[in-house]
């Protein structure tokens, strides 16, 4: 054995050299490698059957044979041709990318994971390369040199892998000089996969439930009533107030629709309890619907046709119940559908009135066409008119930051209202760094049907940029709550925080509103809506008026 002062010792370096560097290969020649923790389980045959979708069968992602129909290639190419005709944006997005790379490092999956195919520009190239080959003259002639490639089963598999590693968050589109929206390309990719019966179960099971029961979870009417009753019990314990649960009430002024995640999942239920308390205090003439019992719409992650099918119930129930307008709860992708699709696919809602707050008289002109108002717009207006009695100091143990959920922020521009509300109900609100919020907000990593658990590593990679910014404000300002107005966020960010910023809990804004609100006839508020003691408020009645913090 040579010793370190002999030259031979250093030559070991070469002996130790192992080939750990990934080979430099063109992306087209790098076949997809399905990694555990990165892919999602396929849609079950029975779900496809319920929905009348093609090619229902049982299969696994790791199977060599995905049991595609014999004429699969023809199906995909015809499907592509049809969509190029139908959606002008799709054609424009296929043609106009100059591969400038401005979007390349803007996707949270690329930022956190480093797989080049998660660069938005490459994600869309997966589809665009096939478009070039089969739909452009140049691509037909030049082939690979012109960035074109043959559609093969491997390409289909690659589409599946990477179109389900996109949360359709649209962050990349903010940076594209041409406004190319990779989320829409992902949507097209998923539609085309759907023609072959390729879905993920995390999406298609909720869709099948929603189609039959009105909500993703398959909660039936009596189940919904029961769950709201449970919440009413907890509300009574926290505040001493018994709230009514108007269900399918004909002739009510307002129909309230919220994502079903708020009915069952912690911490969404606390936000739901917040809605009930708020409406009770205002004496609002509103109703729940046991069929429009889901604001969310996993059709958005399936196909345009499915968006329409699942969303139809909202206007249908509004009509059946004879309400004047619709109020919507805290949800992300629900608002993308309501704001950008509902009017076109299910409208016009000419049987409804332009929403007008019965408390303040404010007419929501922005909702003139859809007739549906966001709970944050509604609450911000109430606060602005001094209609809520608030004691923000009840939330003093909460040091909160706000996560702009992708869809409310980027798809409907709802940036100020939630902040306005937060500032009025909490004394300690801290923003995350500028380049991680508002239009540039980072996704939770689990939207668009990716929020299941078998792809946990992928979600955590995607959640890294958000998690890093949360940890920064945690360390700098002692932030212990992350507020988000999205039901998917309220589920997925719990996990993101547990991994990247342990100690930060997730909350909806209406939960904080209700905790700060003073209700007519309430008893001494010793616990919050989570039924956890409110620090410093254990004896609030006694100290009131004494002018002392003691």
């Amino acid at each position, binding site marked *: 054995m040579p010793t370190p002062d002999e030259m031979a010792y250093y030559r070991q370096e070469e002996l130790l050299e192992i080939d750990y560097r990934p080979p430099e290969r063109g992306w087209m020649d790098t076949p997809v490698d399905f990694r555990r923790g990165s892919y999602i389980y396929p849609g079950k045959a029975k779900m496809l059957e319920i929905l009348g979708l093609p090619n229902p069968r049982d299969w696994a992602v790791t199977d060599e044979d995905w049991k595609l129909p014999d004429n699969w290639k023809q199906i995909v190419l015809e499907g592509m041709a049809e969509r190029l005709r139908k959606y002008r944006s799709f054609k424009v997005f296929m043609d106009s990318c100059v591969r400038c790379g401005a979007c390349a490092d803007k996707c949270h999956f690329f930022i956190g994971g480093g797989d080049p195919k998660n660069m938005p520009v490459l994600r869309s190239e997966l589809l665009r390369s096939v478009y070039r080959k089969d739909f452009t003259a140049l691509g037909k002639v030049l082939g690979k040199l012109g960035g074109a490639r043959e559609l093969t089963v491997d390409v289909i598999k690659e589409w599946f892998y990477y179109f389900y590693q996109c949360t359709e968050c649209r962050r990349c589109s903010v940076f594209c000089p041409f406004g190319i929206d990779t989320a829409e390309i992902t949507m097209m990719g998923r539609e085309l996969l759907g023609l072959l019966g390729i879905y993920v179960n995390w999406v298609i099971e909720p869709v099948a439930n929603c189609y039959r029961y009105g909500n993703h979870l*398959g909660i*039936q009417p009596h189940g919904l009533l029961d769950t709201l009753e449970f919440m009413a019990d907890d509300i009574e314990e926290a505040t001493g107030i018994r709230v009514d649960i108007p269900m399918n009430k004909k002739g009510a002024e307002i129909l309230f629709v919220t994502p079903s995640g708020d009915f069952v999942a912690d911490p969404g239920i606390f936000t739901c309890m917040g809605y009930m308390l708020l409406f009770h205090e205002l004496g609002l003439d509103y109703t729940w619907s046991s069929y429009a019992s889901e604001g969310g719409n996993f059709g958005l992650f399936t196909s345009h046709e499915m968006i329409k099918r699942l969303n139809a119930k909202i206007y249908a129930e509004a009509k059946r119940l004879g309400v004047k307008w619709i109020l919507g709860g805290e949800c992300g992708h629900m608002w993308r559908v309501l704001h950008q699709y509902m009017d076109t696919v299910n409208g016009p809602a000419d049987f409804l009135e332009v929403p007008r707050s019965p408390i303040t008289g404010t007419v929501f002109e922005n909702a003139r066409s859809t007739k549906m108002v966001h709970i944050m717009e509604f609450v911000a207006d109430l606060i602005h008119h001094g209609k809520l009695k608030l004691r923000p100091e009840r939330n003093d143990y909460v040091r909160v930051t706000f996560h702009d959920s992708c869809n409310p922020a980027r798809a409907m521009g709802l940036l100020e209202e939630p902040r306005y509300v937060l500032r009025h109900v909490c004394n300690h609100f801290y923003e995350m760094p500028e380049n991680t919020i508002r239009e540039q907000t980072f996704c939770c990593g689990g939207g668009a049907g990716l929020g299941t658990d078998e792809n946990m590593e992928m979600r955590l990679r995607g959640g890294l940029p958000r998690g890093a910014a949360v940890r920064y404000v945690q360390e700098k300002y002692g932030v212990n709550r992350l507020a988000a107005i999205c039901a998917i966020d309220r589920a997925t960010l719990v996990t993101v925080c547990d991994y990247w910023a342990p100690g930060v809990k997730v909350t909806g804004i209406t939960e904080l509103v209700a905790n700060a609100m003073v209700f007519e006839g309430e008893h001494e508020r010793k616990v919050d809506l989570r039924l956890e003691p409110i620090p410093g408020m254990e004896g609030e009645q006694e100290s009131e008026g004494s002018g002392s913090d003691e």
Partner: protein
Amino acid sequence: MELVEQLRGRQEAIARRWLEDTLATYAAETARRLDRDQDRFTNPVGYALRTGTQAVVAGLLEGRTAEVLSGCLDEIIRIRAVQEFAPSQAVGFVFRLREVIRAEVQGDSTLRPLASGLGELEERIERLGLLAFDLYMKYRQRIFELRVNEMKRSVAKVIERMNRFRPGAEGGGLEDPGTDGPSERGSG
């Protein structure tokens, strides 16, 4: 440990070499971008790699405790535990520090006579590798706990209970909704 003192003066160069070596475990295009963007929020991985490798090299040469060194490695390993690396790749970069330091010594005639000091330093790096392995296991374990926690929070069971009671429905209620969750084969 004269060698260590000498190396302390080249700390930055060593950290830089090690960083480059670690970046090379990513695809070339990725490595370029991880290295270029200096913003800690838009490039958290690059930031963690850069600051982490610097801190580890400094701590190692200053003879810091295992606890301190583990803290310096923490974020890098937390990140690599969720990236698509085999376990050996996820922690293997730590052992490469040995080669980096050897190369530094070999490349400099004033350092070469001090090379007998390498043995101890390399022992420290081996211990560092073991710390990295502990961290890796800690984070892999946490990932599985998070999965289990999500399953526990999962709503399927609650709904099953909620739907069990069907007033007025004499067996002829609606068919059960699908609340059995995902499965690998997509069957069931």
